[in-house]
């Protein structure tokens, strides 16, 4: 069986995906998990992906947003927010 990636490695890959699609497509946590499985095969599993997402959120590199469903995005100024 292939060696598993570390949480940080998966988090970095996810971060890049989120950053690349920022402003074009909103990604759900499930989209990131599926993409990681597709790219890395046996080297990742659902638990590892969950830990990577948690690490991204708790470090503040990404944030959860809600637009009819929950998404993961880079922190940004809230468009709807009133100053």
């Amino acid at each position, binding site marked *: 069986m292939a060696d598993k990636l570390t949480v940080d490695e998966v988090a970095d890959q996810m971060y890049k995906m989120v950053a690349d699609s920022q402003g074009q497509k909103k990604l*759900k946590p499930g989209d990131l998990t599926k993409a990681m499985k597709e790219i890395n095969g046996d080297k990742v599993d659902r638990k590892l992906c969950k830990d990577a997402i*948690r690490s991204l959120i708790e470090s503040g590199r990404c944030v959860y*947003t*809600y637009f009819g469903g*929950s998404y993961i995005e880079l922190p940004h100024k*809230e468009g709807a*927010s*009133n100053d």
Partner: protein
Amino acid sequence: MADQLPNTPMLDELEKGKWPSFVKEIKTAAASNDMSKDLLGILEKSYSEKIGHWKHGGIVGVLGYGGGVIGRYCDVPKEFPGVSHFHTMRVNMPAAWFYTSDALRTIADIWEKHGSGLTNMHGSTGDIILLGTTTDELEPTFQELAQEGFDIGGSGSDLRTPSCCNGMARCEWACYDTMKACYDLTMHFQDELHRPAFPYKYKFKFAGCPNDCVASIARADMSFIGVWRDEIQIDQEKVKEHIDKGVDIVNDVILRCPGQCMKWDGKKLEIEDEYCRHCMHCINVLNKGLKPGKDRGCMILIGSKAPIVEGAQLSSVLVPFMKMEEPYDELKDLVERIWDIWCEEGKARERVGEFIQRVGLGNFLEAIEVEPLPEMIAHPRENPYVFYEEYYEEGDDDDEEEEEE
């Protein structure tokens, strides 16, 4: 501090009559709170213009969590600066909504300090709803609530705050301890509750008996309804007492039984339990004369939802009977198998009930490794184009074609 209340002729109409009025409560709060004063103003504006002035969703939340805060801003902040930000917080309620008055005062004090002071006890999710605060106040509110032992609930594409009826705490018909099960699963699935990872929302509701006081069959993606699998307990003396007090047992009980499984010969009530549909009607009418059986557990149903992407659905049976005993491993395992396949194959904003409809119950059952059972269908199949695998093997098609030739 709030001075004069805005002129609200349309809202004032909602204060008339004997029933409680949310307008009256907002006006009371507005006497000492600018947020509530501007809330009255923006509501009156919406009522007169017939236009909603709220913008919903976005980025707000507390650190580390993806649920529990619903972002809300108004689109006329210059006119109503007090409600420029008006975020809602959902606080996970205690199982079956039992509080001490001290706990309620604590929540109210925290909310008056950090928010509008207005609450909704409780929202349709069952949570304590704290209405209206600014982005800056979210984290301090959360920290203070946490120090007092409260946590925020679910929102967005996550496990929503599980809720239950008061079960064994107050009800003689509870077939399992709903409060214990609700609390246990809430604690076990904390990650799913706070970190949205599903295609869409997922709701658990725990009802102690088929009366289903939390309406789980219509409101929960996964309902746990208490049920028994042995015979209804009959106390003939107590049944007679009901009749002596005027209950028309034939018209009110026997003829209303959906399973037509009851017989009354003028002296004794008999029940053919194998035909009982567990509707609870006879037990409700002949209170103490009849009781649920002694071998109790729960029936698990799946799939109900309100109409959003598709129409409303009621839940249907997934597991006809499961013993509800700690540590609920069998149940948790089933839940995780369902989430695995739904997260893998579900579309965005597709509830599990819609997912089952799309992939077909047979495929869904196979994926979650549950055997099909007669209890899962409402009535015998009507579609003749259904083939059972055991009667239909590879090569059958060729044989038929050869015979025709």
